């Protein structure tokens, strides 16, 4: 169904209280696509993610998921529609165990999905090994793995990842990229991710948007992505 | 800037990032308010003057709590313990020493020092024992409740220090008011003009002094500890020492309130350290806006005045209205009532200017 994209964002404005950050963001993600968003520090990437999931109100513009307008829904309702969100800076539930953190992730679908826990453990063995450690005491990279695993637990149909590679060791970064690509291929999982790590972008993204000063300023194709210098130029000052 | 003397530099700290109110307009306003306060007794009867002194008495404790809680981030639920300790010390000292030769003033200093010492001991126990957050609040509350319960049962004649009977729950009375020795006969500071000016002067001095303190390096570290104690320590600050110092200063101010209150009414009871009494300073400071000295000062005064007016005119309904006011204030004025009022006023003037 190429005519109803998975996610359609038009003219989105948003920010914090009186301070506008997003100034009319337009982009879309097609069904079964992995799309990256890149941009320098402070241009509003995280703000965009938070507005998409509904943690920040949008002041103008619309967000449609498979043709359904969702920008008027609360965050948990959007999540129930199958959107998973991994925040920047991990935000695991620090005083709950690793296993409990994963179980909370099931709420996205509101039910337990058989075999999902085993799958997640398969992706991230450390989460099984440390199942009863309190999440707040995990190392930074372990927390990041937990945050990704947690969102997968709910079997989302699309995920928003905010800098998923941050703090993760190189081979696991590759692993995460593989997992996402694999899920995308098997289940049609849609992925929107913000990233600075060029290796990861190249390993995962099918398309890429460049963001600057609260707007989408360029849209790159897969071919553009393979052009290292071109990509770099979008991220430099 | 370079050749500014240390004194000038210290004075410049009277305004800074840690306090609201900067620039000419603020200080002009301050001068006007101060002038009004000085002129006030000319237009008011002696009841109002004395009643205002009574309000002023509490402000020191509120300012102290603002320092400890608002700036330092440690919620002490037991400021009344220091209030009580200083108050009883003052009572015991003056009943035994009498009011001649300025001994009441000496007793004031000694009583405040006692509360500071007590705060230093308790504070050392708490801060160096790494007690923080609500636990700090509850330990300090427990201490004040222990003092209350203990003092409440000292009714018997065996509970006397020198000539001073502690006198249990009924409270200790009969201590002299503050008295200034004067060539033409000592001035007894009854709740009237001289006491009004003395308290006002103390208030101004302490308010300005605290402003300097919180904008100084000490104050910077204090707010840093409030925001992120670990980070503050990792910048090389001995955070426990700073917390302790703020606690001692704030508690000494609570002690000052205690002495002034006792001298004002010639009376102190254990109830002044009870649960209700202990919660009140927190309410004043939170409602006024704990993060700033000026809002604390004005807010506390406002709450005291409004609550008294409500009690006078509201009979049985006073408490209901007070409760409702507290709830509404917290809901509509997250940064304290004074901040809300100031912002509201600014918005109004701006709108007028726009027209």
């Amino acid at each position: 169904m190429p005519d109803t994209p998975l996610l359609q964002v038009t003219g989105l404005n948003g920010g914090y209280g009186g301070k506008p950050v997003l100034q009319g963001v337009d982009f879309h993600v097609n069904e079964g696509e992995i799309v990256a968003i890149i941009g320098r520090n402070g241009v509003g990437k995280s703000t965009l993610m938070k507005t998409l999931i509904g943690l920040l109100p949008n002041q103008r513009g619309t967000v449609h998921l498979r043709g359904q307008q969702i920008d008027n829904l609360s965050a948990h309702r959007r999540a129930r529609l199958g959107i998973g969100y991994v925040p920047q800076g991990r935000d695991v539930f620090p005083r709950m165990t690793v296993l409990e953190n994963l179980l909370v992730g099931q709420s996205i679908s509101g039910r337990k999905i058989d075999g999902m826990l085993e799958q997640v453990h398969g992706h991230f063995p450390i989460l099984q090994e440390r199942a009863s450690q309190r999440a707040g005491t995990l190392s930074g990279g372990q927390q990041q793995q937990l945050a990704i695993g947690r969102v997968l637990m709910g079997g989302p149909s699309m995920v928003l990842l905010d800098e998923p590679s941050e703090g993760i060791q190189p081979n696991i970064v590759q692993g995460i990229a593989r997992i996402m690509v694999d899920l995308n291929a098997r289940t049609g999982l849609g992925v929107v991710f913000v990233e600075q790590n060029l290796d990861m972008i190249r390993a995962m993204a099918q398309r890429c948007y460049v963001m600057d000063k609260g707007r989408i300023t360029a849209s790159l194709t897969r071919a553009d992505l393979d052009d290292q210098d071109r990509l770099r130029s979008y991220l430099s000052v | 800037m370079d050749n500014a003397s240390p004194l000038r530099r210290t004075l410049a700290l009277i305004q800074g990032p840690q306090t609201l109110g900067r620039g000419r307009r603020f200080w002009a306003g301050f001068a006007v308010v101060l002038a009004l306060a000085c002129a006030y007794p000319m237009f008011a009867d002696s009841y109002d003057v004395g009643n205002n002194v009574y309000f002023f008495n509490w402000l020191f404790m509120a300012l102290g709590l603002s320092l400890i809680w608002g700036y330092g981030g440690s919620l002490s639920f037991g400021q009344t313990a220091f209030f009580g300790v200083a108050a009883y010390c003052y009572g015991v000292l003056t009943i035994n020493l009498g009011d001649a030769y300025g001994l009441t003033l000496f007793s004031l200093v000694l009583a405040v020092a006692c509360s500071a010492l007590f705060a230093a001991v308790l504070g050392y126990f708490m801060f160096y024992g790494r007690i923080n957050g609500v636990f700090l609040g509850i330990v300090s509350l427990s201490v004040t409740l222990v003092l209350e319960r203990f003092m409440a049962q000292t009714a018997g004649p065996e509970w006397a220090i020198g000539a001073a009977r502690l006198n249990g729950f009924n409270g200790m009375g009969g201590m002299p008011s503050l008295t200034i020795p004067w060539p033409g006969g000592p001035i007894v500071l009854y709740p009237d003009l001289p006491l009004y000016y003395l308290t006002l002067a103390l208030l101004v001095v302490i308010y300005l002094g605290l402003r300097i303190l919180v904008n100084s390096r000490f104050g910077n570290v204090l707010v840093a500890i409030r925001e992120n104690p670990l980070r503050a320590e990792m910048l090389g600050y001995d955070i426990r020492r700073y917390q302790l110092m703020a606690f001692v200063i704030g508690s000494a101010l609570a002690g000052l309130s205690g002495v002034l209150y006792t001298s004002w009414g010639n009376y102190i009871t254990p109830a002044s350290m009870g649960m209700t009494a202990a919660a009140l300073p927190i309410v004043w400071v939170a409602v006024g806006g704990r993060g700033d000295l000026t809002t604390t000062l004005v807010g506390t005064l406002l709450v005291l005045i409004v609550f008294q007016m409500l009690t006078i005119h509201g009979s049985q309904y006073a408490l209901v209205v007070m409760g409702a006011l507290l709830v509404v204030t917290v809901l509509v004025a997250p940064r304290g009532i004074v901040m809300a009022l100031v912002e509201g006023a600014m918005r109004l003037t701006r709108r007028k200017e726009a027209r």
Partner: protein
Amino acid sequence: MTHILETRQLNKRFGGLHVTGNVDFALDAGEMHCLIGPNGAGKSTFFRLILGEHLPDSGQILFQDQDITRAKPFQRIRQGISVKFQVPGIFKELSVRQNLVIALQHHVDPRLLAEEIDRLLEFLNLSHAQAQLAGNLSHGQKQWLEIGMAIGLKPRLLLLDEPTAGMTPDETHATGEMLKQLNAEGMTLLAVEHDMAFVRQIAQRVTVLHLGKVFAQGSIDQITADPRVAKIYLGEVDA
């Protein structure tokens, strides 16, 4: 004094987990050293031990030949260690400028403080945001601010836990250059990083930590060429 920092048989456990095991580690004065290793290898814990946030179960830590194993954190900072944490530790409710004031007031002459901070803000690219509350910065900006506070202390030894996380490649590169400059001015650097490009850019020596133990040590080329390191850590890229 050749070693500015030295740990001897440093041990730390959490419950049953041996997080650092008999770590012998020495850092030469004036070098730029990177600490790498898998997630959970114990890198951040090692930092916390050096800083005194955790006390070791056994072993010794020497800084400039002085035993600081039991010293309080603030005392270690005063002796010339400084840190940028993995998770930004800033004063959220204070302005960006105020954050730096607190970091610098300790050792900068009050008369020069304002200038010094202006320079630092410029350097961190945060001049435009100096009046903003630090909590409202973007993630990357917070990292910058934190680095600014750490170097503002003018330490002899600077510990950096993932300084470039969340930065664009260009910014990462700029950070590397900045660190090199600081190093040239005499600061010893110990950084934890997962970004190999950055490690390659700055590190004179690299130590790999694995399961709480020193797993390998050497130049970046030696490390990347080590198949064991590739297996546990690097994967196929960059190997």
